[in-house]
């Protein structure tokens, strides 16, 4: 009986998220966050693609992209 009770408590703890369990998080990593075009002539349009990946273990969500 005691053994059944322990198993049930463990299952309940896992289902609600045990405090000692590792939290799953996303991890955003950009290949190259800085691009230097060097010398260019005025009037040129400079285009750069920034590649990134999710190295974490949860879904990565991009909330906003804003130029400054």
């Amino acid at each position, binding site marked *: 009986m005691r053994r059944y009770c322990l198993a049930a408590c463990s299952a309940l703890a896992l289902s609600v998220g045990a405090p000692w369990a590792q939290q799953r998080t996303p991890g955003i990593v950009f290949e190259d966050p800085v691009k230097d075009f060097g010398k*260019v002539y*005025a009037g040129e349009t*400079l285009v750069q693609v920034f590649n990134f990946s999710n190295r974490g273990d949860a879904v990565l969500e991009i909330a906003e992209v804003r130029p400054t």
Partner: protein
Amino acid sequence: MYTTGLSGHVSKSIVVVSNDPRNREVTLQVRAEVLPEFAFSALGIFFSGEPRGREARRELTIEVAPGRPSRIVSVESTDPQVKVRLEQVPGSGERKYRLIATQRADAPEGYHFGTIIIKTTSKLNPEIRLPIRGLVGPSGGQ
């Protein structure tokens, strides 16, 4: 990044906000050194206080950046009080030009304004505009 109107060292940043708790905000950056394709010796043509009845003349030089295949095709003035013409600097091989602006002798007293429209063969800068500002003073034996 659009570089029209920019010059010198330029950098622009982009902030990416995500749900990554260790990198809520990542800053991306693009940098460049923007060079003029056409270098001007002055930012415009300015006449100041020449008396009415006397023709006035101003000049500026335009130089095409080394290695650029562009040429200047034509110049025109939208200011009826100012005529403009273009001369190639001899020996420069269509790389250096002299723009000569002449304020008419019969221009009326007061201010006048306009634009010089420079047409080029450049795909980056097919048309360049420079301001003309002028003030004609009173005529008479001054």
